[in-house]
């Protein structure tokens, strides 16, 4: 009875647009789902540093190198921010990382694809960050205070990355024939993974009704996907690149694009661990953690000695 009253108050709060804060009462299902989403998001940010970091040492000029360094730093910062936001729900970062390393927690499927050329850095900023923004601007209106505020800030930086990525593609598309081919090849390889990263289509996406009511999820995957495609197709056309979907059509009646069939088998396969880079990404993260263990232990030991000194003094 007590819980039913609390639940009623909780839902009333959400309905009136008041944010839920860490110390407020919340249903366990709400807390669990948020931890799942926020940690998955945080993991995506730090795993995402790997494919982009792959090109820092080979960036074609100093300006691009500086921009890429700053971008990857932003992504890591988002990770840090999101781990902290998740900690407000009572799980600590070590625990969340443990879940990443054991495969219990997921990260965005998109980062299991390799960055093979410089144009991939443009494609990630333009398409991957572009798709992420569509999702995250919606989440910024979500009901959990720390997460929604994190989203507001993250979206600002992602918009910047999105423009930088598009600018890389534009420069390539206007460049030499080899550069244009590089840009088209990157679009060919990243288009479908970017379309898929917004998640399974609605008829195949469980758990939505309650989460929508609680404003944990704000929009359906398909609605977000439609917005991403509507926004991105004209951008590709503008720089003279072709979206690799022969069935893509603009529907005058609805004012939206209709797209070809999505290869969901590939998506679920990558989620399951069978993407081109799953093993490598996870190994890199696990190795970093393992190789850093003695460093973290040293920092703890050093701090403990300082505490002891203070006690004696």
């Amino acid at each position: 009875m007590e819980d039913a009253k609390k639940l009623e108050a909780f839902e009333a709060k959400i309905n009136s647009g008041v944010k839920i804060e860490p110390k407020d009462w919340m249903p366990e299902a709400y807390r669990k789902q948020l931890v799942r989403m926020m940690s998955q998001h945080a993991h995506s940010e730090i795993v995402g540093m790997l494919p982009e970091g792959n090109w820092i040492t080979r960036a074609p000029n100093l300006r691009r190198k500086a921009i890429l360094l700053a971008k990857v730093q932003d992504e890591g910062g988002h990770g840090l921010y999101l781990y902290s936001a998740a900690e407000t729900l009572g799980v600590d970062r070590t625990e969340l990382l443990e879940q990443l390393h054991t495969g219990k927690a997921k990260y965005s499927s998109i980062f299991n694809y390799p960055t093979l050329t410089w144009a991939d850095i443009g494609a990630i900023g333009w398409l991957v960050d572009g798709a992420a923004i569509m999702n995250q601007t919606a989440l910024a209106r979500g009901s959990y205070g720390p997460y929604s505020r994190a989203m507001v800030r993250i979206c600002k930086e992602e918009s910047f990355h999105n423009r930088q990525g598009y600018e890389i593609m534009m420069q390539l598309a206007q460049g030499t024939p080899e550069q244009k081919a590089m840009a088209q090849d990157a679009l060919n390889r990243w288009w479908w993974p970017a379309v898929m990263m917004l998640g399974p289509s609605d008829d195949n996406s469980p758990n939505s009704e309650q989460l929508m009511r609680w404003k944990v999820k704000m929009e359906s995957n398909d609605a977000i996907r439609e917005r991403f495609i509507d926004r991105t197709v004209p951008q590709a056309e503008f720089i003279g690149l072709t979206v690799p979907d022969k069935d893509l059509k603009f529907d005058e009646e609805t004012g939206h694009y209709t797209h070809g069939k999505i290869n969901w088998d590939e998506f679920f396969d990558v989620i399951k661990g069978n993407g081109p880079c799953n093993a490598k990404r996870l190994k890199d993260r696990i190795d970093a953690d393992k190789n850093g263990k003695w460093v973290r232990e040293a920092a703890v030991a050093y701090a403990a000695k300082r505490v002891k000194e203070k006690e004696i003094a």
Partner: protein
Amino acid sequence: MNLQQAKFEYLLRLGDSSLIIGHRLSEWCGHGPILEEDLAMINIALDFVGNTSELLKYAGQLEDKGRDEDELAYMRDEREFRNLLITEQPNGDFAFTIARQFLFDTYMFFLYEGLKASKDETIAAIAAKSHKEITYHLRHTSEWMYRLGDGTAESHDRLQSAVNDLWMFTAELFDMDEVDALLIKEGVAPDLNNIKTEWETRVNEVFAKATLQLPTTTFKQKGSREGKHTEHLGFLLAEMQYLHRAYPGAKW
């Protein structure tokens, strides 16, 4: 050698050292021991890239042969690079990276402090901006020297061994030739003998606090002033320059 040529050479020394050590730090991206440190290393690398751009841009202007900062960074070969040997040494473990960075940051801190008073206004302005950044870098690396040196037995041993291995590259930090002589005379650059004293004092202080022994290595490897590098630089440049060189004249 006239003043302009000496400045050009000197700017290559400064710019190349920043470029190469920034490159090494950026190799840590995504592989750091803890997320905060991952971010710190990329951030410091970013400062070095910014510093490199300013220095090499000015070098190109003084040279007046139409080379910009990218041409200088991406189109010179190994023997034309003037970075200090310590900056090109591979990352090793985190202790090695921290030791390398601390020894170099300390040098850069005092050197740029001196350069802030340069009679060349552009150099003085670049130094003033960079010195603020270096102050943070040095604080950061000094703190890690304490943590690792006075942390666990393992971290202490790793750091001591890193310092021992790097020591042979520290002597050339203070090497001076006719470029330095001319620039000191003209008030453009500080006397490295003074920097050396300050560097030694600071290094001794930090080593003592970090419970490290001063290495007894007597062999001193030098050569960067004449572009005689260790074998590592060639591979670093091959990676760094490949894309730029593979598409001559392309804009990115």
